[in-house]
């Protein structure tokens, strides 16, 4: 897999696929989920992320909103990566993702497909797009901890 993910053609297809068929898309009307509305400063991306955590474990993540290819695909990948993880595992993955976006050393292995965004740092105007969903889940997890 890791080798395949070096191939730009594959990466492109991955992103397209997550954009056209976003996973875990559509919100649920369920108060056991906490939710976060992210409207990026550029006033264009406007998404909502929901998460359900039980006993330290992420049971489900959902998202919806108006967003570009990069935000949609990166958020979609995020949901796939984090569902079924413990808080601690999720936080490690999130940290790795932000390290990658920041062009620092990071643990490739745990990011899986999300390394499709490893070169976003070269396009500063897309960094907000590639992180909006990830920021939402990060804040949701952190807030959840504080509330307990």
């Amino acid at each position, binding site marked *: 897999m890791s080798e395949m993910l070096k191939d*730009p053609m594959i*990466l*492109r297809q991955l*992103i*397209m696929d997550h*954009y056209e068929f976003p996973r875990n898309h559509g919100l649920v009307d369920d108060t056991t989920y906490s939710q976060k509305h992210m409207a990026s400063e*550029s*006033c*264009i*991306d406007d998404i909502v992320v929901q998460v359900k955590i039980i006993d330290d474990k992420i049971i489900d993540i959902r998202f919806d909103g*108006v*967003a*570009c*290819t*990069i935000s949609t695909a990166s958020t979609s990948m995020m949901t796939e990566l984090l569902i079924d993880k413990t808080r601690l595992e999720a936080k490690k993955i999130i940290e790795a993702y932000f390290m990658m976006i920041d062009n620092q050393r990071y643990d490739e292995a745990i990011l899986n497909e999300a390394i*499709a*965004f490893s*070169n*976003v740092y*070269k*396009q500063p*105007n*897309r960094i907000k*797009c*590639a992180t909006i969903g990830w920021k939402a889940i990060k804040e949701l997890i952190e807030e959840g901890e504080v509330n307990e």
Partner: protein
Amino acid sequence: MLDVTKIRKDFPILNKDDGLIYLDSAATSLKPKKVIDAVLAYYQDYTANIHRGDYRLSLMASELYDKARENVADFVNVSATEIIFTSGSTASLNQVAYQFGLDILQAGDVILTTETEHASSILPWYQVAKKINAKIEYVPLNNEGLITIENFTKAMHDQVKIVVTTHVSNVLGHVNPIKELARITHDHDGYIVVDGAQAIPHMLIDLKDLDVDFYAFSGHKMLAPTGVGVLYGKRCWLDKMLPLFYGGGSNARFDKQGNITLKNTPEKFEAGTPSIEGVLGLSAAIDYLRDIGMDNVLMHEEELSKYLLTKLHELNNVIIYNPSVKSGIIALNVKNIFSQDVAAYLDHHHIAVRSGNHCAKILNNVIQVTDTIRCSLYIYNTKEDIDEFIRVLKDVTLEKCIDLII
């Protein structure tokens, strides 16, 4: 006719070799040397606070400031006492809503507006309506987002106290028939407040002829610095209005008991140190535009706009939302690619456009789309700019957009 080659030489930012194609003048315009020099002169030759004559520098700054007011007044054909300098259109429009609207509106009165309004034009009135229990009504737009006189006349009735409308929509670029709207409004004993932010930079505006009650615009969209704007109001209303801000310079005296004697209009509205170099820059911008001739500005933009529309029509991957527009604001999308992805792709080719909802967030009710690419033209744009824009647009695919980041 307007000599674009010569004009482009006046804009330092266009004379670097990075090939910038700036198609976002509706957000803010580039600045010519004449304006930059006016700002520099304030820093280098007569830095001083205004409205003081104690020494030469302060007298010089004060006189230039007062002359700038006359220059602005002259540009829009009103009296200098009717021109208030503000920090921008947003400040101007909020001031009218709270200091005039709140005062004259009563519960049940109607504020008639449109769905193409910019947030800065309509949001203050939402606040006013809430406070006073007034009602907001909308003029139905035609399917291109235009206010027609017919629709306006139908929407008008005797409960309408205030009409709030943009002169030129910042999303769809349509020029509203303000003179007629003002006449109809006044026939119903209403007041009309016009957001001129996207009109003033592009055409000669005669406020006396339009006969509006209030009119707002910003410096930064008309070649001048940011942080400065104008509120025009008919003298009779300004004289009755109280200022929003109180402070140094706007009062003649005050005492411990809280008695304040305000200065006259317009000074009473300008508490505190204003954007002095902003005002001087605005005056220089007006001189610059006047030298070119506003008729030439308009003609140039209409010509470019027509050229751009023709070229766009030839592309089959593009949707145009305002195909009948005459001004230099064109709203479009590339089929099946989100506007922001297209904007980023254009940026990769040094083309600056804006994507999004452009702060006119209720317009999606009308054009049935939340986000567009906005291409907006000004005096320094050329047919070559458009050719390159078209070339890149023609080529764009979702794959190419994604390839930029992988």
